[in-house]
């Protein structure tokens, strides 16, 4: 099965993440999908505040620097004013589910026709690994040094499920990265999500369970193991909603 594979040309330089960080894979998948869908020259990516901030100047496509958490709002007006443009909001879990919860949910509520990719790495990577709403019970983070106490801080949040069950959007899925097969599935979710946008079906969101070896204090491979063993049982993988094409 000899087929050429090359990092999309719109990725200008090496991504600046820690060794084994899932962001590197997900950014590549996103850029591959954009390229394959033929939108290299009609696309805008909403960049969040978080480790993805490090993408500055790395992508040769229009990249909007959002306020922390608020790209659900900013992408809304961009997409409404430029309905033919492919608009993709790339967001961390802290960004999309903590500070930006209202904006993320409201965009889905209004069924805004853009695509969200959320990177669920269970903490605030950028700022040194504080607890996120996706951190697991008992997880040690910089703001839960004795392990997350869900009595005081609630059980980890599953936003994709909330959106799928509460709002009339087009597409919701959750993928991961722990094997080549999972990576390929995740890519197919991202592509379908973008396709739903292109077809005007509605809002789409793909969450990706992604390793943060640095803040998890694990090797990259052990981080992937943790995803399989600890996260997937709580954050089930697969398509959660698919309204199909037009």
């Amino acid at each position, binding site marked *: 099965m000899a087929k050429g594979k090359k990092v999309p040309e719109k990725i200008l330089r090496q991504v*600046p993440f*820690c060794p084994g960080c899932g962001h590197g894979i997900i950014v590549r998948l996103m850029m591959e999908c954009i390229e394959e869908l033929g939108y290299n020259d009609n696309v805008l990516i909403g960049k969040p505040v978080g480790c993805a901030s*490090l993408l500055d100047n790395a992508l040769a496509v229009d990249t909007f620097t959002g306020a922390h958490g608020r790209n659900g709002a900013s992408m809304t007006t961009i997409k409404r004013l430029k309905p033919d443009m492919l608009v993709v909001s790339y967001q961390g879990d802290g960004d999309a589910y903590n500070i930006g919860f209202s904006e993320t949910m409201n965009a889905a509520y209004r069924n805004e026709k853009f695509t969200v990719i959320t990177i669920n790495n269970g903490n605030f990577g950028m700022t040194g690994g504080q607890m996120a709403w996706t951190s697991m019970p008992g997880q040690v983070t910089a703001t839960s040094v004795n392990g997350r106490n869900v009595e005081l801080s609630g059980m980890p949040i599953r936003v994709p499920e909330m959106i799928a069950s509460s709002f009339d959007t087009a597409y919701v899925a959750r993928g991961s990265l722990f094997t080549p097969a999972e990576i390929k599935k995740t890519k197919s979710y991202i592509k379908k999500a973008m396709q739903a946008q292109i077809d005007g079906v509605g809002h789409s969101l793909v969450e990706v369970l992604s390793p943060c070896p640095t803040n998890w204090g694990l090797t990259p491979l052990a981080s992937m193991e943790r995803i399989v063993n600890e996260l997937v049982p709580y954050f089930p993988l697969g398509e959660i909603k698919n309204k199909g094409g037009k």
Partner: protein
Amino acid sequence: MKEIVFAGFGGQGVLTAGLVLSQVALFSGKKATWMPSYGPAMRGGTANCTVKYSDSRIYSPGQEEPDVIMALNIPSFNKFISMVKPGGIMLIDSDIVTCDTNVRSDVKVVKIPGTTIANELNNPKALNIIMLGAMVKLMGDFSEKEAIDGMNDMFGKKGKNKYEAANTAAFKKGYAAV
């Protein structure tokens, strides 16, 4: 007032080495400040901190004109060599900083085979303490005992007494190396 910069890769313990020195200074009745570099370039990049100590009030805690710089990798050497005060000292691990160090005639470059020593001690993590030992000797402001006591006091308070012997050994090796 003395100004010292500790620079290297993240993970080499340069911030800790600086902290130990500042704590030793306090222990000896001096005033001290410790100022890290921090910022977006931190992740996986180089780290450095500036330590100052003095018998009297320390005004600026920032980098001005370091008397001594410890550089534990080539990028740090290159970045900081131009900043050393004329007549000052650049202390390097000669195992790592293998580039041409003959750049400034008005700076004394002191080379210690830190990594080799650390390996001899079977304690690769002790590189920072070894280098610190050398630095304390070079500065001449604290006696060996004063410094070791200050260091052990600090780690002790952090509940890390168990490393006392190893740290002491490393420090002594470094102190003896210059």
